């Protein structure tokens, strides 16, 4: 009398084990497919908003200028002097594709800014001596 529910239970148990097994094997296959020398590449950077990209670019340029100063004890005459030792490629503004503005203020300060902060609905968007000014 009890054989039918028992059989049904084993049937469900077997199918559950089968699904789990398939999932585990699938996961292992996925991990294997993502390995190998062809995948020896750094993870892709997350996409940023235009403003986020500008802030990131300004900070990258600012850090590159600081590194240039650390070696030369003076700020670079132009942003072009930062390539390739301190920055791989000079970024441009994502909205207008124009170059960022750089000013070496005396021998002890520098500033990097966008051409027109109003493009980003801001009054000011610049980095001065490594500090972001955004308002």
């Amino acid at each position, binding site marked *: 009398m009890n054989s039918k529910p028992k059989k049904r239970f084993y049937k469900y148990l077997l199918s559950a084990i089968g699904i789990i097994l398939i999932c585990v094997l699938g996961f292992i296959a996925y991990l*294997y497919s993502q390995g190998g020398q062809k995948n020896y590449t750094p993870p892709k950077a997350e996409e940023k908003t235009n403003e986020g990209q500008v802030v990131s670019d300004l900070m990258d340029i600012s850090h590159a200028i*600081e590194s240039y100063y*650390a*070696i030369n004890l003076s700020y670079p005459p132009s942003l072009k002097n930062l390539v390739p030792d*301190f920055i791989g490629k000079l970024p441009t503004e994502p909205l207008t594709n124009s170059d960022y503005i750089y000013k070496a203020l005396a*021998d*002890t300060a520098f500033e990097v800014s966008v051409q027109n902060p109003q493009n980003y609905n801001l009054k000011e968007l610049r980095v001065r001596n490594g500090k972001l000014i955004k308002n």
Partner: protein
Amino acid sequence: MVNLLKIRSYFLLILFFGEMSLYAFQVTNKEDLEKTIGKAIAREINCKEIKVKINFDSNIPSKINNLAVRMDGVNIGGIIADYITIQYNNPSLDYKNLKNQGKLKFLSYSDQKVNVLLSINSLQNYLSLKEKEFGKKNVNIRLKFSPPFIECFYDVPQKEIASETAQIISKFIPGDKLEGYAAFTLHAKKSELSAHSSKVILNHFLIPGSILSTFENKFNPFEKISAINIFNFEINNVVVQSKYVLLTN
């Protein structure tokens, strides 16, 4: 008698101030001061080269606006930094100490900026030293800077890694050597360096993040940057650039 004592104390006072202003006059010459500071640093810090640059205030010639010191090849807790540059804004120096004892002492300053540059070679040498220190052999690790990541290509015999780690790894991945790739970012807090991996491939398998986090917690922080005795600073930022890793305060 009282007048004589008064005259004598005035005379001593004049002599004292005269001597002090002479010190100031002698060392306020830019080049002399830069050399004197360089020598004072060289007495305390072992490095390849020291460069000092001073900018005086254009309105007050004796006031230093900015003082920058660059030291090449300095040991900062196991890692030999290619360059350490420390900038002080509006520093006030203890000239008497500098002149008499040849020691650099900052009485005050408004701002201090520290930049430490580490090249690929410097990090590779650090790894080689660690391998020697722990008696590891046939360990092949190659680094590459890909901002914001440091890429690491490794080939390590399993017997050369810690037995505890090897036991965990062998549960997942069989084989007598560990070969693969890692992309990681560096972080610094209170001068302690930590590495956080964003992608690790080991013996053709991508390692899931949950497994990585257990290892990361064991290894981090992996190094403490030591401040240099004259210059007290704390490293709190790390930026990976195309040829250098920049550590800042």
